[in-house]
């Protein structure tokens, strides 16, 4: 089959079968990718930007990325958080160069235009010329050239932003199902930053969301998780979506493991494996309820991770149709005991680019991309659990992926 990525986007038609099928051009077409950046990442959505604890003091800032757009998250003198486009209002220079730091003002290195911590233009060198010559015209007004600022919403210590002036409040955006799930982790306690890791995954960004919205792969592929009963298809579990299908949550509760005909199909089960140092996995319950795994995929760019006691924000930063950065920020709570912090750091061995579990995912996403990329006109099958997009009380389903593509097609006009 010819490589047909020259097909104009107007000729792209979602295959028959609706959300039970995904055309492989959706993972590689540059025009589709361009539209995703504009309509999904920079459209009517609240995108994750960072944690307030990353910039605790006035003047603190951090470079961040939304879609393909470099931004700066900063804290002003009043303690309020701003998110600016990292682009000087003069000639477009990406003025902020350090990944993070503390400043009194932002100064562009080219012509030294300077901005205060709220993004207002303060300094324009040679504005009145030199020795009466040159300078900006009388009509030039500084107040017309602030940094482009995004709408910002903070809740429970996390920062979200949007380019949209129309999108509903962040709370309404999460909706009645996801707001309580979100607040369960961001319950008002001060957060503490444990550290970062980032990986460049050679696949389309949507494959990451599919991975987290497909819970049943975990009980088949993640032998490490399965063996220690951290996540299995026979655990009590649930899949939840918001009304639009754009957010999804995968919830697993620890149950009693037993050998049954069903888990005999989990061929990778190695019930004789014992850790030499069991401190690696020593989970304790820290939230009300029996949920041990709650993975929330929040449109458009965030995975909120509770895997036992490892808490992390995983931010998706697309880098072209066939590559994305997965940027992990691990955190705990300021009132954690030293023992709890150690537990989080030890369990982090399961996650990230070297994670005893998550390596499986980043490796399989590379293989997925390698499989779909040369075949844009072929389609993937998403019929596990039926054809619907409803919540379930089990994990043997691809309903959350179907719900995601239902909303995706709505936004993208397919």
């Amino acid at each position: 089959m010819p490589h047909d990525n020259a097909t104009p986007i107007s000729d792209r038609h979602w295959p028959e079968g609706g959300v039970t099928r995904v055309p492989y051009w959706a993972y590689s077409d540059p025009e589709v990718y361009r539209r995703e950046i504009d309509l999904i990442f920079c459209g009517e959505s609240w995108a994750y930007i960072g944690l307030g604890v990353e910039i605790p003091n006035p003047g603190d800032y951090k470079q961040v990325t939304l879609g393909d757009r470099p931004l700066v998250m900063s804290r002003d003198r009043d303690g309020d958080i701003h998110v600016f486009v990292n682009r000087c209002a003069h000639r477009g220079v990406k003025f902020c160069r350090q990944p993070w730091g503390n400043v009194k003002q932002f100064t562009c290195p080219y012509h030294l235009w300077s901005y205060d911590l709220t993004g207002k233009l303060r300094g324009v060198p040679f504005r009145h010329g030199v020795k009466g010559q040159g300078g900006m015209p009388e009509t030039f007004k500084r107040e017309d050239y602030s940094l482009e600022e995004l709408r910002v919403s903070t809740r429970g210590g996390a920062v979200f932003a949007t380019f949209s002036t129309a999108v509903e409040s962040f709370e309404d955006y999460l909706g009645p199902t996801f707001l309580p799930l979100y607040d369960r982790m961001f319950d008002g306690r001060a957060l503490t930053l444990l550290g970062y890791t980032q990986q460049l995954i050679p696949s389309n960004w949507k494959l990451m969301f599919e991975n987290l919205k497909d819970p049943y792969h975990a009980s088949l592929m993640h032998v490490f998780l399965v063996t220690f009963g951290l996540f299995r298809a026979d655990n009590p579990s649930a899949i939840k979506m918001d009304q639009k299908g754009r957010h999804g949550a995968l919830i697993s509760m620890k149950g009693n493991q037993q050998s049954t005909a069903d888990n005999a199909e989990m061929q990778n089960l190695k019930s004789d494996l014992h850790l030499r140092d069991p401190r690696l996995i020593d989970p304790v319950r820290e939230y009300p309820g029996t949920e041990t795994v709650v993975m929330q995929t929040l449109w458009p760019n965030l995975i909120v991770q509770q895997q036992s006691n490892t808490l992390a924000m995983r931010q998706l930063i697309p880098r072209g149709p066939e590559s994305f950065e997965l940027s992990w920020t691990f955190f705990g709570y300021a009132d954690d005991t030293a023992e709890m912090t150690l537990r989080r750091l030890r369990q982090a061995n399961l996650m990230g680019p070297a994670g005893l579990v998550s390596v499986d995912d980043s490796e399989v996403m590379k293989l997925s991309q390698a499989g779909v990329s040369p075949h844009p006109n072929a389609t993937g099958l998403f019929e596990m659990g039926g054809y619907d997009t409803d919540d379930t009380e089990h994990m043997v389903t691809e309903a959350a992926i179907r719900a995601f593509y239902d909303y995706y097609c709505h936004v993208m006009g397919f």
Partner: protein
Amino acid sequence: MSVPIELRLEIEDLLQAYGAALDHDELEQWPQFFTDDCFYQVIPRENYDRGLPLALIRCESKGMLEDRIYAIRETLMFEPRYVRHLISGVRITGQDEYGIMAEANYAVFETPLNELTRVFNVGRYLDRIVREDGVLKFAEKHCVFDSLLVPNSIVIPI
């Protein structure tokens, strides 16, 4: 500081044997380079310099090293690859009752089978080395790597 030439050579040999075991897929040998109560971590320079404790790999005993090798051999799913460690610029930076402090630069190249070799992970080792039954072993090994962004996955230890 003055270090006997024999000790310098012995530390150089330890580091090169360590790299060779990983490069030659003798992963079961890897924990044998460490003491029983060792500390091993692979941590981005950004976290290390800022005092943020999160590591990509964090092992607090030889048992945890052995568990990781077991996972690589038996539970992890990954594409086959070769790695190649270049270890140079060994410096002995201190010596006290807790052992010998040594630093070295490292570059790990990765060759996924059927793909070009690429620079995979570059950084420095910060080691505390002790003598156990006449043999030098790592009591601590911190692999502090420069690029926060990792190419896909780290499977073989650094």
